[in-house]
């Protein structure tokens, strides 16, 4: 009977390794899809969540935006760009109001939120009057409303984040059984 128990223990270990590998594969696939999206769109962050109401009524907090950042697409007025201000982490989603482009393609531009009364010069870094291509994370090409609210909730309420992760973990375990 001791041999039998050894067998069972060995089988469980093998099952465990199998689960871990399976899980690892799911995570790697997800990462590969994300990296693939980054390559296809040319953007370091192909999907972003709208964090403020400065583009209402078009976009609201929690809407999800799909970005591209292809060099062949020139920046033109009216486009919705997602950009980062030097030294700040949070990306901003606003519309291009003004562009000045040189013969060689160097461009400087000004942005403004649809829902803001003034342009973004006040938001830029001290002494910075224009945005440049390097500040751009991507151009908004499509969007889906509401879905991003989950990430905002997870950010603002860490308890919610743990709850979600816990439930996800539970689901994976229960499902495999």
């Amino acid at each position, binding site marked *: 009977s001791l041999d039998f128990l050894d067998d069972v223990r060995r089988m469980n270990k093998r099952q465990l390794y199998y689960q871990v590998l399976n899980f690892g594969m799911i995570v790697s696939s997800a990462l590969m899809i994300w990296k693939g999206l980054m390559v296809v769109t040319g953007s370091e962050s192909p999907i972003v969540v709208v964090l403020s109401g400065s583009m209402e009524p*078009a976009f609201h907090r929690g809407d999800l935006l799909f970005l591209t950042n292809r060099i062949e697409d020139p920046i033109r007025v009216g486009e919705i760009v997602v950009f980062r201000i030097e030294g700040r982490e949070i990306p901003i989603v606003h519309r291009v109001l003004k562009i000045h482009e*040189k013969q060689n393609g160097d461009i400087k531009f000004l942005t403004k939120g649809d829902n803001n009364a003034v342009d973004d010069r006040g938001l830029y870094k001290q002494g910075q009057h224009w945005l440049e291509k390097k500040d751009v994370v991507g151009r908004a090409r499509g969007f889906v409303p509401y879905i991003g609210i989950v990430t905002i909730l997870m950010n603002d309420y860490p308890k919610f984040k743990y709850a979600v992760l816990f439930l996800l973990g539970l689901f994976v375990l229960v499902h495999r059984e």
Partner: protein
Amino acid sequence: RKNVEDFTGPRERSDLGFVTFDITADILNGKNGLQNFWNKNTLIIFDWNVKQLFLYLSAEYSTKNNALNQVVLWDKIMLRGDNPRLSLKDMKSKYFFFDDGNGLKGNRNITLTLSWNVVPNAGILPLVTGSGHVSVPFPDTYETTKSY
């Protein structure tokens, strides 16, 4: 038409242009000749998936300093359900028309175009340019006095 210190930007003197304009557009009927992204056969722009249009009037021109300049002079949000016919007269630009330098003086070819961004309930965000644009020349001298 005036050479004024651009108080909103870098502290150098730049040309500031004053433009007044009329806009007549019939968006619903697509008289601006555009291809609607969702219904290529009909000319209905405000269909079930269009939440709003973000309209903007932009001025495009070339200067010695910059091969391409685009400045939004005026914009408007048109929600589904709003009157789709625009008939605006004698409008002043909503935003200051500052050039990056002194390229407006004597510039004979400033093109004004009406475009719009279609914002769907969900999906792709196309930018459309209306057909029909206007060329505006700026005079060779600055105005010294102006009641605006």
